[in-house]
């Protein structure tokens, strides 16, 4: 018997990333292949680990707020909202209705921006270049609104504990309304490009299926869970920041494949516009800052508050020891937990599908690694 050579091997180990255009950042995936078939994956993460949770323990409550923007940097406003809500709950501060409504408007705009980035890059991964340009064009309008509102485009630091730092600017309402009117036909345009597109359907249908049971077992939330047919959205299930006043639907899919997730996210963008319009119509006046003590010193205790971020359930578990600095801040990152299901979704698929599956989870490595 001759020595076995590599020709006898049936398994091939392929390294994808950390510098790979379709891993959406510095994600390294080790693929175990049998021909074109994936028989196992392993994610190597942590390249972007900055120790956000450790930083939190060394900053005051107000000082930590800008850091949370750096986790999921395409949805910085949502991160800030979750953190502020958690500290407010710990402090027992009531946020005035106007601040709540403006928060909802900005968060929903951010949800649209995040989904646009997802749609553009996902389409690019699959081979369609045009949607990326379209999505970036519309996202630009949202970023312009952010810039005018709070002075920054990406890491906005838009909210403060207890409410808002900035009053809306003069043409805020017009700008947001103009965006809503402009945006809905654009969503139809994306759908025209993609929804019936045979290549798009061919690449996405039945790829990366995750059933409702599997989603729950793996803790997968957000559009992935909804695409599997579970009508669950924290904005409805446990409303925060006044979401109970708004009328909107939770879009769901049927089989939980990549194509369903695409449809769910497209519908979510439309629903977001609906929420924004309602919030604008009922925008109350009044103060924008609640009664927050000058020195933020929450009583001893702990709290877990979570919101529906564009990627899923984003939770903050904050332990206070009664001092000005949090004793412990734990972030429950949706991307990190959702990425764990990658192995489940990729097993038995083809190599080319791995790219689609990574895209469809919608991860942001800043949040996975923190």
């Amino acid at each position, binding site marked *: 018997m001759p020595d076995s050579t590599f020709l006898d091997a049936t398994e091939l180990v392929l390294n994808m990333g950390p510098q790979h255009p379709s891993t959406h950042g510095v994600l390294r995936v080790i693929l175990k292949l049998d021909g074109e078939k994936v028989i196992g994956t392993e994610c190597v993460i942590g390249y972007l*680990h900055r*120790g956000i949770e450790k930083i939190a323990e060394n900053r005051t409550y107000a000082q930590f707020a800008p850091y949370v923007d750096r986790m999921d940097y395409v949805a910085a406003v949502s991160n800030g909202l979750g953190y502020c809500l958690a500290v407010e*709950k710990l402090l027992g501060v009531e946020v005035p209705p106007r601040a709540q409504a403006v928060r909802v408007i900005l968060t929903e705009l951010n949800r649209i921006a995040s989904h646009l980035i997802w749609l553009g890059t996902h389409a690019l991964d699959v081979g369609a270049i045009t949607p990326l340009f379209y999505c970036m064009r519309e996202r630009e309008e949202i970023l312009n609104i952010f810039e005018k509102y709070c002075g920054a485009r990406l890491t906005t630091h838009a909210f403060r504990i207890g409410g808002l730092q900035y009053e809306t600017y003069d043409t805020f309402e017009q700008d947001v309304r103009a965006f809503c009117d402009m945006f809905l036909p654009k969503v139809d345009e994306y759908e025209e490009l993609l929804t019936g597109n045979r290549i798009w359907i061919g690449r996405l249908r039945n790829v990366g299926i995750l059933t409702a049971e599997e989603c729950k*077992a*793996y803790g997968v939330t957000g559009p992935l869970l909804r695409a599997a047919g579970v009508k669950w959205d924290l904005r409805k299930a446990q409303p925060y920041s006044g979401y109970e006043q708004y009328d909107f639907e939770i879009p769901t899919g049927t089989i939980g494949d990549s194509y369903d997730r695409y449809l769910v996210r497209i519908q979510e963008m439309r629903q977001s516009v609906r929420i924004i319009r309602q919030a604008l119509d009922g925008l109350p006046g009044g103060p924008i800052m609640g009664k927050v003590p000058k020195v933020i010193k929450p009583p001893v205790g702990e709290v877990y508050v979570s919101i529906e971020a564009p990627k899923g359930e984003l939770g903050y*578990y904050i332990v206070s020891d009664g001092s000005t600095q949090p004793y412990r801040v734990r972030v429950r990152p949706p991307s990190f937990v959702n990425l764990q299901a990658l192995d489940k979704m990729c097993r038995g698929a083809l190599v080319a599908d791995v790219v689609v599956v990574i895209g469809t989870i919608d991860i942001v490595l800043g949040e996975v*690694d923190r």
Partner: protein
Amino acid sequence: MAVTPWEDELTRQLQEKFGEQILEFSSYLGQNFLVARPEAVIPILEYLKAEAQFDYLVDVTAVDYPERPERFELVYILYSFERNQRIRIKTRIPEGFRPATAVPVYPTANWLEREVFDMFGIEFQGHPDMRRILLPEDWTGHPLRKDVSILDMDQRWVRQHLGIESGQ
């Protein structure tokens, strides 16, 4: 607002089933939690999943209190889609104690427990893949422990892999 006792149908069931194993049922700011003995955590998770529809493990994390004899507090956050309810299960463990893994009950605990191991050095017994997840594999030290300063880093690792004297 102070910590208040938490009593309802679920706590009665749990009390009946686990008795002395559960030390405390409490509620703070409307959020319910229970404190259990470390050995009882996995049976409680199993029970809650099977009997009370707590089918989603939201998070596993730890908090370090170096001055306590039982240094770490492990926290499991559970959610039930059916009841739209969230509870926390806490347990206190000393340094070096190896709690049982929750992976057989909830597959999602895999990475979450790895992160706890990475950050606090709590090893989970029976975990399929107990390695570091965010930090490099040959790193020493567990950064979220309270005795590690924010400026500390593994200088040996920095010298060896980055070829510079110090990471500061």
